[in-house]
C-alpha cells in the first residue's frame, strides 16, 4: 500500500475534527433534555440510565468512537503534540453550532478566548520538529 502523504493525514484529522464538533453539539442537546427531567448524580448509576438510553447522547458517542478510530490510525505517524492543536479549529465550529442549534450566548470575552486558543494552537502546529 502506498504511504499516505502528510497532507492526506492532516485532511483525515480535520475530517475527524468536523465530526467531533458535530458530535459534541448532538451530545449536548441530548444531555440538555436528560438533565431537564432530573439531576444526574455521579455516584448513582440509576440516575445515568436516561443518559445511556438517549439516542442523541449515544449517537454522538458513536461518532466520537469513529473519530477515535481515525485518531488511532494517524497517532503512530504524527506527534500527539502536533495532532491535538489541529483539533482547535473545531472550537470555532462548536461555538457557531452552539449559537445556531442550542441558543447558547457567546460573549465577546469568550470569543476572544477561543481566538487566542486557535492562534496558540497554530503556533503549536507550526512548531513541529522536522525529521
Amino acid at each position, binding site marked *: 500500500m502506498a504511504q499516505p502523504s502528510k497532507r492526506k493525514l492532516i485532511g483525515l484529522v480535520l475530517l475527524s475534527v468536523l465530526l467531533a464538533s458535530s458530535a459534541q453539539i448532538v451530545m449536548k442537546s441530548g444531555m440538555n433534555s436528560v438533565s431537564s427531567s432530573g439531576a444526574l448524580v455521579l455516584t448513582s448509576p440509576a440516575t445515568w440510565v436516561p443518559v445511556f438510553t438517549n439516542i442523541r447522547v449515544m449517537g454522538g458517542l458513536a461518532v466520537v468512537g469513529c473519530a477515535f478510530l481515525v485518531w488511532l490510525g494517524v497517532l503512530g505517524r504524527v506527534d500527539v503534540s502536533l495532532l491535538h492543536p489541529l483539533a482547535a479549529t473545531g472550537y470555532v465550529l462548536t*461555538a457557531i453550532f*452552539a449559537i445556531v442549534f442550542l441558543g447558547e450566548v457567546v460573549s465577546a470575552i469568550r470569543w476572544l478566548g477561543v481566538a487566542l486558543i486557535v492562534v496558540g494552537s497554530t503556533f503549536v502546529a507550526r*512548531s513541529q520538529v522536522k525529521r
Partner: protein
Amino acid sequence: MIAIAILLVAITLGAVGQVSLKHGITAVGVVGVRNVVRGLPRVFGNVYILAGVFSYGASSVLWLYSMTNLDISFMHPLASLSYVFTTILAIILLKERVIPMRWIGLIMIVAGSILIART
C-alpha cells in the same frame, strides 16, 4: 467551581489516555486506518491501549456530567488545556522534543482558557 474542577479532571484523564494510546500504538507498530482495523485484536491486546481506552471512557463520563452544568461553547475550548498536559507528558514519557515556539503557543492556549473560564 466544582463543575469546572470536574471538567478539568475529565480533560486531564483525556490527556493521560492520549499519551498512553500513543505509546501503545507505537509499541504495536500498526499504522494507517486500514491496518488498525485489520489489526484490532493486536491493538486491543496492548495494555497501554487498554489503559488509554479506560482513561478515555472515564473522561467521557465526566465530560457528559459536565454538560449538565456548563455551556458547550464554554467546555469545548477548555479541552485545549489537554494540549498543555499532553505536551508535558509527551516530553517526560515519550521523550518528544518541544521547541520554544510551541511553548509560546501553549501559553496563548492557557491565556485563552483563563479568559473563557471567567465568562
